[in-house]
């Protein structure tokens, strides 16, 4: 059995801001647009957390939308 494809993610490096992470994870997109996309895909960090957007090195940060949504 092989692993089925799942939503891709990265973990933040120490001191990394969302823009840095966007540059690293989505190098083919403009940084601001990529950072906005990452924010929208990671509401557990950028909406639900207090303070919103606090990045922890243990975080799972998705670098693509939910697969079901992407397929729809």
């Amino acid at each position: 059995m092989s692993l089925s494809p799942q939503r891709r993610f990265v973990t933040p490096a120490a001191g990394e801001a969302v823009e840095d992470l966007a540059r690293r994870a989505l190098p083919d997109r403009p940084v601001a647009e990529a950072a906005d996309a990452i924010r929208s895909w990671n509401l557990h960090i950028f909406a639900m957390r207090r303070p919103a957007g606090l990045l922890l090195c243990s975080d799972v940060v998705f670098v693509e939308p939910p697969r079901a949504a992407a397929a729809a």
Partner: protein
Amino acid sequence: MYDIVIRNGLVIDGEGGPGRRADVAIAGSRIVAVGEDLGAGRHEIDAGGKAVAPGFIDPHTHFDAQLLWDGHARPVLEHGVTCVIPGNCSLSLAPLRAADRPAVIGMFQQIEEMPPEAFTERFAKWTWEDFAGYCRTIAPDLGVNVAPLVGHSLIRLWVMGADSQQRPATDAEIAAMQELLEVCLSDGAIGLSTSFVDMDAEGRPVPSRFADFRELDALSAVLGRAGGRMLQVVPEFYDVDLTIARIDQLAELSLRHGIPTTFSPVFDSKATPQAAPRILARVEEQAALGARVWPQMQTRPIDISFSLLNPSLFLARLPNWWRLLKRPLPERLAALNDPKVRADLIADCGADGGAAIFGDLIIRGGDGAPAAYAGRRLGEVAAERGEGAAEAVLAISLENGLDVALLAASGGHEDTGRIGPMLASPLVHIGASDGGAHLASFATYGDTGYLFSEFVRRSGHFTLEQAVKKITADPADIWGLADRGRLKPGLAADVVIFDPSTIDRDVERPVFDVPGEGMRYTRSAIGVQTVLVNGEVAYEDGAYTAAKAGVICSLEAA
């Protein structure tokens, strides 16, 4: 002559095979024979009409504090549980410097809903700092066996101090954490626990959440070198994609270091019916590649009770309510008597006046609630009083000294037809009881009895023997408790004698036995006749004995 012989019972040895009529003989703390017509014992127990099984193992508890004043971990022992695993979710009570005790008490209060008095009342006994000291402190009074995890947050706090909640660790700090974990494992810890979701009393992520994967990998290497010890985590269980990401991380650590890993909880929910099946499918894929990633699933449906006497998870989503409940009682009462504060609280609950949040809750009896309200829907009572739902919660609470409890009876994980097959999967670990925590929210006891009443007798998803295996030999194998979980000569004499036709959990009720006159919900056992721990009768015919035969069994497993 044997010390104890249990006669005429249906012996279910824990391995899943058919039960058989046999006797069980015990000498000292060991089972020495299982068979027919065994010789006499100094003490004989008639188990006619009953099942005789290995003591049950509860892998997810927070009895760290309770074991300081109650070595039997009441009431789990009377439910047949003879071994508990505390120290889950990154939290243990050692290693912990004296100066850091208030911070850790705050974490237990915030995450596990345990009153600070449960710790401070026992400060006189709190003399340890290292893990060995904690084990030495609880060991003399143990009536139940304990296999404690050490919490990652505690390891981090010890090594990094306040920086543990500021930044990732340096190479030197990671090396120090590895060294400390090695010592804890030698001193009685069965493994390491960590958390990706929890907050401290100030609303900051707990120390374990500041660790990068490199740190977790380094600590997992220590678990591997120690013979393959357990890594337990709390993932972001509210989101299936996040949980699957954590499964993949655990699988990576399991394969790289040869360790078992477990995560909890996994809930089934009608709102997201594909979540639990997707999680279990990922576990299956990783297991096929050789990774040991054990999801823990509880047997009982989710319910939650609360009053305005204590902070409650139920109200955590309402910021003004949550802040109010964190204030000392006199301040809280004064605030609640202020109409402006009440208006703000009601506004917190939405345009329907809190009908969606509170309307279907049941007003519990047995406390300060008027008898005429007990057992009725809050929405119905509110309408009768001419109040909105949130307004009624506040008014009825104030009229009765805040001592009015409300029950949210249908919190999910309640569809037996869906849950039974998941529990029966050989890849699913029955656990997540949370025993010893969430004291004023729900009774975390009796999941084992509920396994038999609901999933053996009512739905038939398990045979009696399969159910016993699921909570004895299976967890013993998963956690490396080689001396427990089976009725076999040479193994520890942890035995439960119960009536298969009646074993169950009793109704939830409040008791006031937490130090500092604290309240907790509890459940008594039904159908459990006798419980033996290491060859001594610890519970019999509805009463606990004075036996204190429990041990730190992870030291034996080491």
